[in-house]
């Protein structure tokens, strides 16, 4: 495996007294695409929050390019080149479509992504650019959320359930766009309920179960029974 861009070890994460992650370990290589799968409440979103700084933990639990970032605030993590497409899209309702994209570029990192590049990827957004983001369909909102993350020109991008609540045809479109998004050296973590989808776009996967890593391996060769066991915890 190439040098890891992200190395998580011994990660415990909490909501108040409630522990959501237990001793999670995970590595992503430069340019690698990982799938994170797991049932509802397994801790996938908590893992995304912990990497992006929305949930702050002990510094050494999350290492990014050799630097301990586990205790940084989300804005500091963003500046280092990690972007999150959050679960449920979470666009800014007071901002137009274009403003949602522009604010994604606020961190000021250089790279291939710009307003024009995003509009080229999702032409419909250019047509709708002056509209309120809440007036878009679910699929278009997801495009804005993805575009907003890309505008930061991240080196590591986190997708949390980008197909949640979307029609199958839209999901197909968005996954068709993914290879064009995760190009040249960008690394990605893809959280997804749809296991087949997740495995098809990733090289390796991690399965979470009740806050722990229950299985990890190569996406192409994993046996379905093993995943079922790791997913639902049935022996």
């Amino acid at each position: 495996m190439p040098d890891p861009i992200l190395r998580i070890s011994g990660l415990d994460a909490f909501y108040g007294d409630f522990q959501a992650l237990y001793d999670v370990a995970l590595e992503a290589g430069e340019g690698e695409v990982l799938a994170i799968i797991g049932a509802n409440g397994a801790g996938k979103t908590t893992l995304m929050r912990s990497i992006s700084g929305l949930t702050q933990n002990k510094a050494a639990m999350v290492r990014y390019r050799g630097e301990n970032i586990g205790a940084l605030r989300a804005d500091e993590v963003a500046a280092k080149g990690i972007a999150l497409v959050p679960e449920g899209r979470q666009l800014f309702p007071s901002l137009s479509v274009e403003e949602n994209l522009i604010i994604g570029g606020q961190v000021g990192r250089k790279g291939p992504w710009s307003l024009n590049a995003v509009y080229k990827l999702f032409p419909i957004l250019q047509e709708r650019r002056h509209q309120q983001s809440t007036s878009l369909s679910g699929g278009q909102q997801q495009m804005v959320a993805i575009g907003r993350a890309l505008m930061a020109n991240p080196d590591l991008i986190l997708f949390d359930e980008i197909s949640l609540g979307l029609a199958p045809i839209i999901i197909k479109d968005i996954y068709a766009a993914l290879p064009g998004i995760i190009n040249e050296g960008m690394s990605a973590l893809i959280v997804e309920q749809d296991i087949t989808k997740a495995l098809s776009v990733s090289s390796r996967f991690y399965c979470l179960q009740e806050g722990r890593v229950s299985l990890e391996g190569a996406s192409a060769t994993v046996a379905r029974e093993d995943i079922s066991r790791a997913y639902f915890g049935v022996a």
Partner: protein
Amino acid sequence: MEWVNAVVQGTLLGGLYALFAAGLSLIFGVMRLVNIAHGDLIVLAAYLGLSATTLLGLHPLAALLVVVPAMAIMGYVLQRAILNQTLGKDILPPLLVTFGLSVIIQNTLLEAYSADPQKMNAGALETASFSAGGLSLGVLPVMTFVIAVGVIAGLQWTFYRTALGRAFRATSDNQEIAQLMGLNRRHIFGLAMALALAVTAIAGIMLGIRTSFDPSIGGGRLIFGFEAVIIGGLGNLWGTLVGGVILGVAQTIGAKIDPGWQLLAGHLVFLIILAVRPNGLFPRIGE
């Protein structure tokens, strides 16, 4: 004609109330903070203006050049050092802390300047007037109104046309996601308070030229500002101006009927509007 005059004078007075209200509206809009000390900060600005005129020999309007930046810096420091610590799910801590701040400001002003009413001396400006359409208009009230319109227009422009305004709106929408965009909300809140107190500085100076003031009048200014914000609809800056004007007109018309009714009439109109339209006249859409 007397009634027309009352309406016109009330409208001009409304400009001053809009200045009281704009800062209040801004910080509530950005960080959902109700600043109980807002009125006292207006009075503090008036006293800073007074000191600038007496110590530096400046005209009160020139004192704006000193007081506006001073209040803005104070706002940023106040927010970063104290108020950010109080913000969270619970709305009580910021209320208590700004109430405490209100008491501290009043007592400090009392120590520094005594309880005697004071006034800034703006020379000929105070009494200058011109006639228009058969009415005699004071230059100062007209100037205050024009400044209020300018301030509201400037804030509106900042909010909807600048990167800072975009950051304000995004942070107001969703603090966590704004943080993901690389915006440190503590800094953004600091900037919002700086801007709010810069406006408060203008309000304080215009107040201090128009009437005499003493350390105890902050509470009343807070109420006027608060009423203007609510009448206009939370989060709507032009609505705040309209709210100020409605309050000002209600007060001058009340005073015309019976001088003792000035404040009462304002409060009554406020209560009636609150009863009929609990979200104010022009609430921000979607909230």
